């Protein structure tokens, strides 16, 4: 048995994901990050929304909560505030987090509440069969954009930064080892952390956009993901489809549940 296996409910596996899906790599990275940090398994809670990636909560051996579509962050907020000693990790997808749950995402970041949001970004609604999400790049095809999406796509990292998150990183299913570290740093950050994990969906996204099978999609990621430092030095022309990975942003900021604990103290002293 590998060290991280205790973090899985082995009797719930195999998972429901399609052949070639990158979600398993990201899920394993979360387990390895928990192992790396030596978190107390009984005081770590995994909260997910609805969608392919959100099924991960059921496979992981913690207190786990599979919420409603888009609502993982406010449920997680309630758990964290109810019992601040709990480490709360949110698993969500691009549709779940930035469309139906978009408002909760920016407000979670605004509060800088100590949650670690791992956003599995496969650029598509996979569970429902390949509809465009707010992270489907403009021009890419989806069942609801058969001639290519005319919508502009969000950059969730920039969104979280503007909204007030205190740790923002991007990793990929190709760069599996660095992804573990990025998630571990996010969990260690005392505040709202976003780790965007680029993951491939060959069935509902890649196939429709002639991006090849899983290995070809991962190859594309390996060629276009550039460490943040190097990315900044690229000219606009060189940037093209390339995107930065690594820790993109970090700041010191008051954490919500700690700030609320001060409110309680103040109210009780004033009594």
């Amino acid at each position, binding site marked *: 048995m590998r060290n991280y296996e205790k973090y899985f409910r082995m009797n*719930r596996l195999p998972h429901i994901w399609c052949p070639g899906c990158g979600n398993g790599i990201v899920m394993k990275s979360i387990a390895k990050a928990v192992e790396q940090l030596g978190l107390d*398994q*009984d*005081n770590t*809670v995994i*909260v997910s929304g609805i969608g392919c990636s959100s099924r991960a*909560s*059921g496979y992981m*051996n*913690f*207190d*786990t*909560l*599979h*919420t*409603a579509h888009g*609502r993982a962050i*406010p*449920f*997680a*907020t*309630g*758990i*964290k*505030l*109810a*019992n601040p*000693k*709990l480490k709360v990790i949110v698993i969500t997808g691009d549709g779940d987090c930035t469309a139906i749950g978009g*408002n*909760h995402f920016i*407000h979670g970041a605004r509060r800088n509440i100590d949650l670690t949001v791992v956003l599995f970004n496969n650029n598509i609604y996979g569970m429902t069969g390949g509809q465009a999400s707010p992270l489907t790049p403009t021009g890419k095809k989806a069942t609801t954009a058969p001639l290519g999406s005319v919508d502009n796509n969000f950059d969730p990292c920039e969104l979280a930064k503007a909204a007030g998150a205190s740790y923002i990183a991007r990793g990929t299913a190709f760069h599996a080892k660095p992804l573990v570290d990025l998630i571990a740093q996010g969990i260690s950050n005392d505040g709202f952390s976003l780790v965007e994990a680029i993951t491939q969906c060959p069935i509902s996204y890649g196939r429709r956009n002639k991006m090849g099978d899983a290995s070809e999609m991962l190859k594309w990621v390996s060629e276009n993901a550039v460490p943040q430092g190097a990315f900044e030095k690229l000219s606009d022309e060189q940037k093209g489809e390339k995107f930065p990975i690594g820790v993109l942003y970090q700041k010191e900021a008051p954490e919500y549940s700690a700030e*609320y604990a001060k*409110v*309680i103290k*103040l*109210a*009780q002293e*004033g*009594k």
Partner: protein
Amino acid sequence: MSQARLMQGNEACAEGAMAAGVNFFGGYPITPSTEIAEIMAKELPALGGTFIQMEDEIAGIAVVLGAALAGRKALTATSGPGFSLKQELIGYGCIAEIPLVIANVQRMGPSTGQPTSPAQGDVMQARWGTHGDHPMIALSPWTVRESFDVAVMAVSYAERFRTPVIILLDEVVGHMREKVVLPKAEDIEIYPRRKPTCTKEEGYKPYTPMADLVPNPADFGTGHRIHVTGLVHDETGFPTGSAKVTEDTIKRLHEKIARVQDEITHYDEFFMEDAEYAVLAYGGTARTAYAAVEAARKQGIKVGMARLMTIWPFADKVVKELAQKVKKILVPEMNYGQLVLEVERAAAGQAMVISLPKYNTEIFTPGEICTAIEELAAEVAK
């Protein structure tokens, strides 16, 4: 706490919830329920509790569901438009069996409607607002003091049956001020959080129903590593596609409430001994109805009254017996005629059921209801 105080229905509701052990509030501002949130924001921190104003109505219920799973007794409050938005997660609370109280101070709709005039238009929404089959408990107080009692009761029922409970206030009772004497803290019965009765080694499964058909899912952070989902799940808490488990689950959810229906049906009857007619009312309208019935009695009309505190599950037995006793039942409501449909169903032709709807932003006057009583008495005399 036992001194007489002048207070508002919303205030009594908030105080009742806290007296019953509520130590977490999440919500979003909306008239005419906002006082409940404001009181919670002010009072909870001193009690070591938590208040959070969320970004929208949906987050307002999501955050309390999360807090309840982590061991808190939790309340959210809203009004019509917000109640509509919260419906999906009310269903989540039903199937995941999470204790939760939602105070809905009704105002006139649909949509933004006539803000924030009184209405009782959410009676059916309280029962059927979320998708799928599920039971519902909804309680509607008619006095400020009863708003306190109903809040205590709602928290207890939520914990005992592990289900969302709705406090169906209306703007009349929510904003009305009355002199009240609240019970002493030691006289308030608090239902504690249900806990696992055995360990994992002894075969603990979070969703195994106990003798009362209610399961004991462990609070998060207590070492049981449970899984909670809005998908249909078996006793382990994990999703299943089984037709049998699905059928058994939906049936059990209904039966855990149906089996205690008599116990949780709260109502009053007035002037019923020799009554030939009855007025059935609830919430703010029941106050006017009472005055009208008194006035009609002075004219010699043999009219009585039934006042329902428990709106859901519907008081079938009470209405059935009422229908056997009287010739006609008058149902005044501040809506186009909602609960009257249930009264008709339960009366099953034993008595004539007459709807007296009002939906013009104004509350009933005793005269209006009294006139309706006079008319139905006169028709029989003819």
